[in-house]
């Protein structure tokens, strides 16, 4: 009846694991309790969970990302603490728990922190930058969100029921095969990836369509803001790389569940196929994570240098080259598998070529700052911190792209330091900068700058303290994923790294402190005009927060920095006498239910509860079929409502000191 789910599944094997389970349950109970206490279930359901408004979906993505950031970071600091003390002793974590932690840290940070974070930013910003009223497929957007949340839910429940994978976030077989890892952990990993991966593929399709087909009239491709360009390339990578993840996860699942032999040691399986397939997805994934951050940096440098972006064309071409090349380099993740020097050399060179467009981008941002007037807003600090840190990661990346050097440094902490050096400054700093920049757009008030700077300095210093020692440890020959060690030379470095992670802890605390302080002082920091930074692109033309329809009058675009041009022409804020009605998609709970069924399918398949899996699958299909036969999934915003919202906006603009162009043509 319950498959292999028994009472054994509860984490009684270690007090730390038990603690994790208790904290998870408490968090859920407390959150549910708080909503009940405030009597806000209905508001939550109507205004948020069932919303198909891209801005709300984006915010929900980011909330999910921040929650998972905390969870992933707890994993990280636990690992650092273990390694700081585990010289010639077991440390405080039992080995099987340490192994689950390094796997879940990687899985969470990539799939459930970075992916939702960037998807959230894209959701909030891209349609507004395009001058669009919504994304191309608002309902699919909601499904993507809830499938991602379902995957995150599977990660969460693996803390309470059963265990998580110990095979690392890339889950290399044959170790992750059913023979060597008979537990449910790898299955949790597979299903969390599969469920959320489908969501990411759909997000990719959604934003390619949105960007190609929903631009404001007049906006040529070469006039799109840079963040749109990088989001576009990211979407392409999502749509075309994630099928590879789906394939590899399904094949591994078939090996494990149906006893097939894709990646087993015996009967003709070949684990080298796994390495190829997962990195055909995995390398583009790196650029999926980094490109949107590059877009944020482009917007931030232009705004906070009070200057037009330098080398727009170069930046666009560089982005496209990076996206294209990202599909041609996957083999560099396993130079040490014994390929011939021909193969290794070709992939090594292909990898290094990516350094060229990346270098170009760095210089373009620097030359945007040159001859500008730099304001050291937290977003700008993140950008400068990114530039000076990221280039170190670039150098170590090129080093690792040289096959003979990779033979030496592969699988050591040098590698760990390298990819954190790409992803923390390259991706996370970008997402933080984006949050600082666009928070007023989503909520109508600015974030506190003091705490913003705290976030930056703690993360910046913490990063150097935590990861520079890992570079050094790589030279000392320390492999990654080591739960205990005997070499006394390593410990002092690991202690420094632990101190670094404590700085990051303060950084994460500051993130939430910044939200708290800013919400408390929101009345002092209102953004009345919708354009708090003297912005250049169309998202600053809407009110903050934007009306459900974003633009009552869709702007016409004739140049890069469309909003800037409109402001110069004095036609940035049109208020016609009359508004036509606007058709918007209606809210729907179907996305939530599909996510729920996705979660149930995953959970049931992990525990071999096949009747539930089939039932949930049928349930999900039924919801989908009913929804897709629906011809009237929209609602109308009446001209009177628009008039009311827009006159409020006009009053706000005037009180914010903005001159308003009257009666601009429709």
């Amino acid at each position, binding site marked *: 009846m319950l498959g292999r789910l028994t009472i054994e599944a509860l984490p009684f094997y270690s007090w730390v694991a038990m603690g994790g389970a208790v904290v998870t349950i408490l968090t859920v109970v407390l959150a549910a309790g708080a909503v009940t206490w405030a009597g806000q279930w209905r508001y939550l359901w109507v205004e948020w969970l069932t919303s198909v408004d891209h801005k709300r979906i984006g915010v929900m993505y980011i909330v999910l990302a921040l929650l998972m950031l905390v969870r992933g970071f707890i994993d990280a600091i636990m690992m650092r603490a273990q390694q700081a003390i585990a010289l010639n002793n077991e440390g405080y974590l039992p080995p099987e728990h340490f192994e689950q932690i390094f796997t879940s840290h990687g899985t969470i940070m990539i799939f459930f922190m970075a992916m939702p974070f960037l998807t959230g930013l894209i959701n909030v910003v891209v349609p507004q930058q395009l001058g669009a009223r919504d994304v191309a497929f608002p309902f699919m957007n909601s499904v993507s969100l809830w499938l991602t949340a379902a995957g995150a839910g599977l990660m969460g429940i693996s803390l309470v029921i059963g265990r998580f994978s110990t095979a690392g976030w890339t889950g290399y077989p044959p170790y992750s095969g059913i023979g060597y890892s008979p537990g449910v952990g790898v299955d949790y990993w597979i299903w969390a990836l599969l469920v959320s991966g489908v969501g990411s593929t759909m997000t990719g399709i959604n934003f390619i369509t949105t960007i190609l087909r929903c631009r404001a009239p007049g906006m040529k491709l070469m006039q799109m803001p840079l963040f749109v360009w990088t989001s576009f390339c990211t979407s392409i990578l999502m749509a075309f790389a994630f099928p590879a993840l789906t394939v590899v996860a399904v094949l591994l699942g078939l090996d494990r569940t149906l006893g097939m032999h894709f990646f087993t040691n015996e009967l003709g399986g070949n684990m080298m196929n796994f390495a190829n397939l997962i990195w055909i997805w995995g390398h583009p994934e790196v650029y999926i994570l980094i490109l949107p951050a590059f877009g944020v940096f482009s917007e931030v440098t232009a705004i906070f240098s009070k200057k037009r972006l330098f080398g727009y064309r170069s930046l666009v071409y560089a982005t496209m080259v990076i996206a294209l090349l990202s599909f041609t380099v996957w083999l560099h993740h396993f130079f*040490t598998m014994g390929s011939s020097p021909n193969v290794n*050399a070709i992939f090594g060179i292909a990898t*290094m070529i990516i350094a060229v467009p990346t270098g170009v981008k760095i210089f373009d941002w620097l030359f945007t700052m040159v001859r*500008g007037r730099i304001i050291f807003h937290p977003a700008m600090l993140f950008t400068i911190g990114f530039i*000076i840190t990221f280039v170190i990661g670039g150098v170590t990346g090129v080093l690792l792209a040289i*096959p003979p050097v990779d*033979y030496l440094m592969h699988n050591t902490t040098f590698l760990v330091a390298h990819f954190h050096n790409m992803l923390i400054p390259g991706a996370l700093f970008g997402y933080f900068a984006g949050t600082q920049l666009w928070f007023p757009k989503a909520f109508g008030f600015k974030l506190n700058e003091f705490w913003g700077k705290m976030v930056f300095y703690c993360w910046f210093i913490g990063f150097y303290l935590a990861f520079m020692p890992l570079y050094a440890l790589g030279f000392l020959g320390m*492999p990654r994923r*080591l739960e205990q060690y005997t070499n006394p030379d390593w410990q002092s470095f690991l202690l420094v790294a632990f101190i670094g992670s404590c700085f990051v802890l303060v950084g994460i605390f500051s993130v939430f402190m910044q939200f708290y302080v800013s919400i408390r002082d929101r009345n002092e920091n209102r953004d009345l005009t919708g354009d708090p930074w003297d912005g250049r692109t169309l998202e600053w033309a809407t009110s903050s927060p934007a009306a459900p329809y974003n633009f009552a009058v869709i702007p016409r675009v004739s140049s890069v920095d469309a909003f800037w041009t409109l402001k110069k022409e004095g036609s940035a804020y049109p208020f016609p006498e009359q508004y036509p009605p606007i058709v918007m998609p209606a809210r729907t709970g179907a996305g939530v239910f599909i996510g729920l069924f996705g979660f149930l399918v995953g959970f049931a398949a992990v525990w071999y509860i096949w009747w539930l899996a089939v039932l949930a699958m049928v349930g999900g299909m039924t919801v989908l079929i009913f929804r897709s036969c629906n011809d009237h999934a929209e609602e109308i915003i009446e001209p009177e409502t628009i008039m009311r919202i827009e006159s409020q906006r006009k009053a706000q603009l005037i009180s914010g000191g903005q001159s308003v162009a009257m009666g601009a043509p429709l």
Partner: protein
Amino acid sequence: MLSSRTVFLSKWLTILLALSLLLGCSMQSSPILYPKGPVAETERDLLFLATGIMLFTLLPVYLITFWSCWRYRAKGKGAYRPNWHQSIFVELFIWTGPLVIVVVIGILVVVYTYRLDPYKSLADSEQAFRVQAVAQNWKWLFIYPDQQVAVVNELAFPCDRPLSIEITSDTVMTSFMIPALGGQIYAMAGMTTRLNLKAYGPGLYTGRNTQFSGRGFPHMVFDVQSLSEADFDQWLERVKTSNNRLDDVHYQNLLKLENKHPVEYFSWVEPDLFGRIIGKYTGAKGALPLQKPRNLE
């Protein structure tokens, strides 16, 4: 009088200096920075060379960053030109600069990837010394096919001859590495990979598996001894006096899951044991029997 701030700063500077000295001293034991063989040394030199070349982009980035942050800050002296957004000269510089560097390093990649191909026998007047390595849970078995002996968790070889290692795995994928002598290569069941290494002289090093392979992964280390001709003969004598013989039955015993297996000598080994271990997974005739995989989590 020193201001309290100066005192504070100097105190922290001293601590930082002491700490970096301490950390710096530990670097002395780095097997990669102080290699003990020609392969590792060439690989390290390549690493240094490439880093040096890349300083040509790294330094301009730092210079421009700090210079522009200073000069173009709100109260800076730099001219404010908000519409300056393109310059053929700058674009040319930023595209060709990185490109030239990548081309240079690309040439290094081609030259050195062929030169340091781990499968290539080292050019040497002496004939290579052959060893076969088998990854197990969680230990390494070394078979000396020419001497007909086998050793667990200890790899000894004469230091005046290059070392040629054939590697396979009788469990999950692992990675074989002796950092002081050169880079690593994966060990995979049913397949052979190769490493060709050499030591400059007699010495003791550590080798290990660097690819996570389950519970006993931290302990999957082995001693490496490069010995002079005479010492090696002595060592071989010691191995040959051992009472243990590595026949098929004893081999099954070795497959037990265990941590920290002590060094163990076998004075005799079944002929072609290495090939028959690989045969387990390829289904070759005469191979050892295949066991069910065991829980390594």
